[in-house]
């Protein structure tokens, strides 16, 4: 019997004492544990169209009115989350910037880093313009800091200028792989970095004109976009995995919820703007371009008004983010302000032409259009004219147009639906008040007297 006891004890020991498992048992076989820098950058690029394709953005610039379920266009006081940008593209890009094992097989490592820097700066610039102060210097540190402090918009702008300059100067020859937007062409990335700087500089025209002028000139001489071929455009594919947001809404979900706003149609139709046929489809009832009053709740419908254009919601429609026409509008404005030694009218005319070319595929009709007395450059009314045409040009990138509206006040005939003024910022995510309470409250306190309202004003919005 003793043998049995001993054997039992031994077997119990064998069963119980083993804490050594197969080495790989807790390694996830379902996901890769390595990623190349350019695969991460490519994924970060997939989020680019989301910067523009948003009903809320379109509402901010009053491009589109709602044909049913009127809500967003009444400017509700509601929070908008920025988490997706940090968790998605920004964390990918930060991972590239922090990586110690980038592979030169995907292109010169400096170029991978430069592209990551440019994209990161571009995302951050969009974020700070929308919300104001945001987590920046302490952000994207994962477990090292789950409660990042908010940096002031001013300090973020300063740092972004520096980052973009650094990106511009660190590039070497040689293209990178997996580049969805520029096919690895580093010249284009370089121009993009400088163009973003140019627009950022312009944004400071009211809050710090001197700095705006300096940075603007610096960016310009560093080399900006020279044609529509340089545009930062996200080309959607005719494939459900890579399709346009508006296609999924209008076609897949049957949401004919968006008509061209009366403001937009009234800006374009009287002057026979060739872009109108792309921006919208004529009203089914009349075959005419009739805009729907922005924020209208009662007399709405899908038959009587010009709806979102079928080219705009095509499955593979492009999304324009940073464009040559904007560069020209910026130069026209800078010339008008006396920042640069160029002709405002020339740049204005070129801008309109570039915009028509971008939207319609050719510059046909640009001449006639510019000949229209209402459109032809008028030096006495230059800022309004430039701004209004820029607003028409920035169609479908409502957030950017809204930033320009906040800066310039143009177009100055936008409506106040139901008596609600146009918001001047987005309210921080609700859950920041749970997840990052102290920093959130400090940021709201110093900028907006403790009220995280959509009517607070960001730093550059004087």
């Amino acid at each position, binding site marked *: 019997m003793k043998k049995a006891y001993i054997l039992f004890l031994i077997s119990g020991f064998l069963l119980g004492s083993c804490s050594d498992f197969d080495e790989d*048992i*807790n390694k*996830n076989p379902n996901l890769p544990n390595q990623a190349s820098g350019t*695969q991460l950058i490519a994924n970060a690029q997939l989020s680019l169209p989301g910067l523009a394709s948003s009903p809320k953005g379109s509402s901010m610039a009053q491009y589109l009115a709602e044909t049913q379920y009127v809500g967003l266009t009444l400017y509700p006081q509601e929070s908008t989350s920025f988490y997706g940008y940090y968790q998605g593209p920004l964390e990918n890009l930060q991972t590239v910037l922090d990586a110690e094992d980038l592979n030169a097989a995907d292109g010169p490592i400096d170029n991978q880093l430069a592209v990551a820097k440019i994209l990161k700066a571009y995302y951050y610039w969009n974020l700070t313009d929308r919300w104001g102060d945001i987590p920046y210097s302490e952000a994207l540190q994962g477990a090292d800091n789950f409660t990042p402090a908010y940096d002031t918009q001013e300090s973020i702008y300063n740092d972004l200028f520096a980052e973009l300059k650094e990106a511009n100067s660190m590039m070497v020859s040689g293209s990178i792989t997996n580049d969805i937007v520029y096919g690895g062409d580093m010249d284009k990335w370089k121009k993009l970095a400088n163009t973003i700087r140019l627009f950022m500089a312009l944004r400071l025209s009211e809050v710090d004109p001197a700095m705006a002028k300096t940075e603007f000139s610096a960016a310009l001489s560093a080399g900006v976009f020279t044609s529509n071929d340089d545009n930062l455009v996200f080309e959607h594919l005719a494939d459900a995995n890579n399709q346009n947001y508006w296609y999924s809404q209008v076609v897949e979900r049957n949401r*004919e919820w968006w008509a061209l706003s009366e403001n937009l149609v009234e800006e374009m139709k009287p002057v026979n703007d060739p872009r109108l046929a792309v921006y919208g489809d004529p009203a089914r009832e009349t075959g005419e371009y009739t805009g729907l009053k922005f924020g209208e709740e009662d007399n709405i419908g899908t038959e009587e008004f010009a709806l979102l254009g079928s080219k705009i919601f095509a499955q593979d429609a492009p999304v324009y983010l940073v464009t040559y026409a904007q560069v020209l509008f910026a130069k026209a404005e800078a010339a008008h302000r006396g920042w640069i030694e160029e002709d405002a009218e020339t740049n204005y005319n070129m801008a309109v032409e570039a915009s028509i070319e971008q939207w319609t595929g050719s510059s046909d009709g640009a001449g006639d259009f510019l000949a229209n007395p209402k459109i032809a450059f008028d030096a006495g009314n230059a800022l309004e004219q430039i701004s209004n045409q820029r607003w028409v040009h920035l169609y479908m990138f409502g957030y950017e147009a809204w930033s320009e509206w906040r800066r310039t006040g143009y177009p100055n005939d936008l409506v106040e639906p139901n008596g609600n003024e146009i918001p001047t910022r987005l309210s921080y995510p609700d859950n920041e008040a749970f997840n990052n309470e102290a920093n959130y409250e400090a940021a709201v306190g110093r900028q907006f007297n403790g009220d995280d309202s959509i009517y607070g004003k960001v730093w550059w919005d004087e």
Partner: protein
Amino acid sequence: MRNKITCIALLLFFQAFNMMAQQGEVSGTVTVASDGMTLPGVNVVVKGTNQGTVTDMNGNYAINVAADATLVFSSLGFEDQEQAVNGRSEINVAMVEDLEGLDEVVVTALGISRDKKSLGYATQEVDGEDINLTNEQNVLGSLAGRVAGVQVTGSSGASMGGTQKIKIRGVNSISGGDQPLIVVDGTPISNANFSGSDGADYGNLGQDVNPNDIASVNVLKGPAASALYGIRGQYGVIMITTKKGKKGVKDVQVQLNSSFTLEHAADFLPKQNLYGGGSSQSFSTLPNGDPYVAVSVDESWGPRMDGTPVRQVFSFYPQDPTYGQLTPFVPHPDNIENYYETGYNLNNGITVSGGNENTTYRLSLNDTRIEGVEPNSYLDRNNLSLSASLDLVENLTVTTNINYARNDARRPGQGSEVGAAYLNQWFQRNLDMKRLKDYKYDDGTFLHWNLRNPSSTTGEITNFDPLYWNNPYFNAYENTSEDRRDRLFGDVSLKYQITPELEISGAIRSDMYTQNIESRQAFGGTDTPEYSVGKYQNKEWNYELLAQYNKDFDEFSLNATLGGNIFSRKYSYLYMETVGGLSSPGFYNIEASIDRPETTSYLLEKQIRSAFAMVSLGYQDTYFLDASIRNDNSSALPEDNNSYYYPSVSGSMIFSELTDWEPLSFGKIRASYAQAGSDLSPYRTTPAFGVGTVYGSTNTLFVPNNLNNPDIEPSFSHSYEAGLDMRFFKNRLGLDFTYYMQKNKNQIINLDVSGASGYSSSTINAGLIQNQGFEITLTGQPIKTEDFLWDAVFNINSNKSEVVELAPGIDVYTYGSSTYSSVTTYLNSYEGEPFGSLVGQAYQRDEATGEILLGSDNMPLYTDATHNFGSVLPDFTGGFQNTFRYKNFSLAAMIDFQGGGQFFSRSKQLGVRTGQDPITVQINDRGQNVRDPLEDGGGVKVTGISAETGEPVEAYVNARSYYRNVVGRRIYEEWLYDASYIKLREVKLGYNFGKNLIDRLPFDAVNVALIARNPAMIWQKAPDGIDPSSISTGSQSISWYESGQLPTVRSYGINLNITF
């Protein structure tokens, strides 16, 4: 694997120790001492072995034993008797009734049988007959109200075996994901759930146990009771013991059980019947001047349903007999009710059980067929189980339990946007459901009710693609979701009685299933046609070795257990979904995907290796002390830090042994302390990248939103428990009281962090959540006469939880959130508060008076979605079961109840928002309908304080703007309901045919019963039409909002049970 072989080899080796001794036959008759009647079914066992037999119908037995053996005679309700054989060949025994019934044996952790009186912790047993009172489809739901401290949140019967969620002693994990371990005959089985928070509710997998097979369910509530399960037992254990055959030559029993019930949908949300579909109270007109119903509007803010002849949606279909015709615009008050059908549930079971001197067997087969109340829904289930034991040689027994279950179902979708559940949310009161029923015209065109408006030039509708909603019948018949599961679980074990004191056993246990889920979106509906198919396979193995030593020394008793266990799990799935549409109608296959289909192949492997020991000491049958320790090594923990120890200690004293106070039949006090733990899923300790969308030929990878943690440790719970068991008046009255406190530390949670950190959540060890409360079970037989017996069991539990701490710098944990129309609600836990606060937008209120603040348009102002409405958890839950027996009749009724707890109701909210709820047509204090124009005295009266001026305001506002845009959309304070209820869950009225009748038939027993499942909600605090007892939403572990709940199902029927 090496260890498994060791274990088996060891057991085979023990066969060699088969001890032999001189044998002789002993026979005799067993009678009842008090009346001399013979007693069948008495166990006659050779002491110290498991060799034995059972007395036959006439109380006779015969057994071969050694001349110096001792026979133990035992039978439930009688005191055990021992008789030394001493060479006798005939031993007759008179059994003495055990009036006190104290020697109740219960199955405890790892299947170890213990005298209940010796336990120092709380367990509560439910008889199989009670569990299976009315053939509840998901047997775990039958625990509702039956065990103090067990909270069951169910789901509608329309899902046919939908999710039943069990929480023992409150919520013990900050993530709310605590689920008890379910163990059937010693085999842990998976209780996974494949449902999401909306769509089809496939139910939790624990329901694969055939209710007819259950002999008893024992709930090990606290870590002390479940300590021997170590890392898997932190949240309690539900031990299910199935019925077995009995030893005895003639004891072959055949039992037939059939039940048939009709299932009705009931308890609908009330609706208004004054205003129909549309968004304004006047009709739009066609070019010819005919008014038409706004078919593009999925709300009921339209014109009055006064019989005006109008073009309704059907009249726009050229195929329709009413094409082009005007028909009266009238309400269809029961249109939603009309959608549901009367279903049925037919259940047939047969069992054969018996045994002979060295074998026992029980074979059972069950077939369930349900046609649900939702059109085109069904569940077919088959259970086959075999349990058998065989004494290979003396002292060596092999036993096996094998259970096979097959499920095949088509279930309805739940949720505010799904199936037919949307009807309560987005619908027109004027729609005739009977017309919608024929959802397909002869030419194949589908009939939908929600279309684009007719052309203002031709007056025709040419595009019949539905706008936002499908005809509900289209959803039911075309957009189907089907699930099938094959499952096998059970064990093979060997038990060897080495000496009378020492027993060693080994077992191999397995649970494996294959779950298939398939769903379709047809051409002709709102969604892109789609097909998805998933195949999920899970295999769990447990290899177990156990040695038990029992010995009585004079006044001491010793019970020692030593064992080891290897748990191994392999889970894999393949899931595929078409993208971008299907290539041809009716061809549902991944091959039909227009674009690159979404596919996932997944593999998960995990092992836990454990060793454990337990010692129990008794003194004078009065004082007991238990101690146990378990070591667990989990492969999911970091490699160099994966071994942890979980100890427990408990003690009890039977103080009734120390007093002669007559009324007290039994009294025990007990106390325990234990640690238990829980680990995490595999692959959470090392970083990995996510696979992103492929753009053209560019592959993308991304950094996942959750941050894994290489330093994770298992969570630990420390639990303290003290209790008192007392029985009075010869057990006519019993009280079982337990106080407990459980501190769950270092929880492994995916803590939501500021997204600005780059991650949405991080896997961390954090927090301390503490639960304390008490459980009371009262049992009684208030009336007991020869003909009449009244048995009552009352359970109540009250639990208070507190999230004592979260992580450093973090004082809120977001368990979940739900966003509708850009308005988000949260379930958060705050440091220093009870678990699970509902958080959302509330009214802005004047600080001084508490009055609602109104804006310049007199509409109520609302806060950010940060208002804390308090905990979702109930204050107390319990149940009350009564059984009455009068002669051959028996009546059993089960009531369960809950006090407190709360939830948001999206069904109610959206019903108001879309103008379907009666509140939107109420008469205001000016005597006018609130929908009437303000200038005619209509409007909703609002009172409050102007936010601008600070002056009190009393005003009337437009009803549609008020309900639709403000209150029904943004102010969740209005949609918060108390979850208290008292529910009559089950009733059974049975009749046992008397011996006189049965003697003339070839039956041993016949019972006929009328049964009712879920017959009535006796009282509830929430509004009619929302069932607070069934707000379970799929796999979501805490139920905190109701959204498109399926209707309550009431079942009435008959049950027939025949024993041969």
